[in-house]
């Protein structure tokens, strides 16, 4: 039963997330936090942060870890399988067919029509993380870290892994209460 839930929780984001792994993050959050309540928003954002600090595809890392937390090693397998297999089977099965239609506006429209919805999902999730940070760390630490984080990541192009390690270090020193 739990394995079936894990399968569904990752199958749905895997089959609906257009734009690669990162686009499916809010869909995974919806299943894991809102629907099955395996984690709180804070726990989810921590998993996401560490996932971003490590190399490799993000969707499978999330599926592997959350599956493992919920259902052990086999849970991890189910989560990853549900994330990877359906879209891969589609890819191998349909590639020949898609090849014929690759310049068709329909195929192009599919991806672009879904983007605004994904943008909203990402935006809402961003807001939820912001809220949880405001509650956990207070307004000043949150504002400070957001500004510094933005400058480091976007202006000075520091590698995300270092910025995340910096945030972890800052938190361990200044936010442990």
């Amino acid at each position, binding site marked *: 039963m739990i394995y079936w839930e894990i399968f569904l929780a990752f199958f749905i984001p895997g089959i609906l997330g257009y734009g690669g792994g990162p686009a499916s993050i809010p869909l995974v959050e919806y299943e894991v936090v809102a629907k099955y309540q395996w984690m709180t928003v804070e726990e989810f954002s921590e998993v996401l942060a560490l996932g971003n600090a490590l190399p490799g595809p993000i969707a499978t890392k999330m599926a592997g870890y959350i599956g493992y937390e919920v259902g052990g090693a086999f849970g991890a397998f189910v989560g990853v399988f549900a994330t990877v297999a359906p879209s891969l089977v589609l890819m191998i099965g349909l590639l020949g067919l898609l090849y014929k239609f*690759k310049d068709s*506006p329909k195929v192009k429209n599919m991806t672009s029509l879904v983007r605004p919805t994904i943008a909203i999902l990402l935006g809402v999730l961003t807001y939820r993380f912001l809220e949880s940070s405001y509650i956990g760390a207070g307004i000043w630490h949150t504002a400070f870290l957001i500004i510094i984080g933005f400058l480091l990541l976007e202006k000075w192009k520091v590698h995300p892994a270092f910025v995340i390690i910096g945030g972890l270090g800052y938190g361990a020193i200044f936010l442990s209460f």
Partner: protein
Amino acid sequence: MKTHLNLFIAFFRSGILGFGGGPSAIPLVHKEVVQTFKWMNDDEFSDVLALGNTLPGPINTKMAGYIGYRVAGVFGMINAVLSSIVPSILMMIVLLTTLTTFKDQPWVAGMTRGVIPIVVVMMAVLTWDFFKKSNQGLGWKVSITLLLVSFLLIEMVHVHPGIIIALLLSYALLKPNKLKKEEKPKERGVN
């Protein structure tokens, strides 16, 4: 055997060196597949990538699976997918379970508090990217309408986001060809 070893090297390397999720590792995959091992030429690779993007799901594993399949059949596919994802999953599980054992320590709780704002920045940047791209792809009128409709349906009416995405996809497939200007996005979300 040699082929399998090469597949392993190609996808292990591109998986373990790519930060920021699958899409950011695509140039690394390209380097291995086109330049190092010459399994495909540039055009083939970009075709496969473009087609992969029209399908849902993580892009990295779709590419790894398909390329592995082309190079060495079903076992090639399994090999390539596992090489690209297993190392990072193991790292993730080891790191997080270690952290969980110390989770009652105040400094571990502090680390969580410190890192969430950084995640906020990353997610905001990603949101902005998608917003920009949807304006480019659809024009700002259609794009803003879809944004508002999606927001209302998901946040106010609490429709499962999957239903909205599925409706949009079927609309894209079923509607008559061409017409980019005549779209009436409002009709679509609600029914």
